[in-house]
């Protein structure tokens, strides 16, 4: 028992934490930005599916070949469409997706402004 405790103490004292390398961090960022097409709401980083494992291998290969993050996204988009990336690019088909939330915010602010002004005017009168 004492030996086991001694070995455990030595292991704890000599163990050094391991941190992911810069490359692993970058790869993880790419995986997080890719959607797993065969999973329910999971990214490639979160998923252990066969598809996610294959995409990870391909991303690693392209990264080792010196391709940039954008080039990797572009390649995968050409094969699987915009759906594979969590942040779609801005184009004529999805401009409403980008502008609608801001328009709704401005419109809502405008309505609130009108209501507040009307209430104030009523109070003054």
């Amino acid at each position, binding site marked *: 028992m004492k030996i086991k405790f001694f070995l455990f103490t030595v292991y704890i004292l000599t163990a050094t934490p391991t941190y992911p390398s810069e490359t692993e961090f970058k790869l993880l960022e790419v995986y997080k930005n890719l959607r797993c097409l*065969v999973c329910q709401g999971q990214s490639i980083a979160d998923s252990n599916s066969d598809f996610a494992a*294959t995409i990870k*291998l391909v991303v690693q*290969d392209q990264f080792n070949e010196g391709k940039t993050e954008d080039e990797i996204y572009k390649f995968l988009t050409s*094969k*699987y*469409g915009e759906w594979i990336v969590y942040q779609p690019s801005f184009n004529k088909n999805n401009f*409403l997706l980008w502008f609608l939330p801001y328009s709704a915010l401005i*419109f809502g602010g405008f309505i609130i402004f*009108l209501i507040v002004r009307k209430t104030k005017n009523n109070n003054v009168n």
Partner: protein
Amino acid sequence: MKTNITKIIIFSFVIFSLFVFWQALRKNNNYDTKSLIGNRISNFQLIEIYNDDKYISEYDLKKNKFTLINFFASWCAPCRIEHKYLLKLSRESEKIKIIGINFKDKKTNAINFLEELSNPYNFVGKDSKGKISILFGIYGIPESILVDNNLTIIKKIVGPIDQIQYDEILKLIQ
């Protein structure tokens, strides 16, 4: 007057929002890669399953009028279902060559699978790590891609080939 304008704006906004929801509900949200139709396939190199020294690339497909690239595996149950259509296609039409790509499988299992069900392929390549499947936009097994001699994708079948798909392939290669 101002109240009327506000009411009109709010009403228009509600109508617009309902229209957007209606359009979104009408749209088919099932994911597929049919958008690849009309695109050219990527360059690839495929090593044969029986002989590591033998391989084909996209240039070899240019020699065929039509090529059906079929991803299969011995562990895939729907692949067994579609196999009879592949055999029928290889027997009935000379215009089409069938390339099988064995996906993430053991060599012996794949060979046994083809011995048991018979081999419809003109070439059987291996994709043991699945990397080649990504070049073809594959996300499940079985999947098939019909290309012409310009290497343009003319049909993509996600899932097993059935009688309807088989008839469509025949119609396309006529």
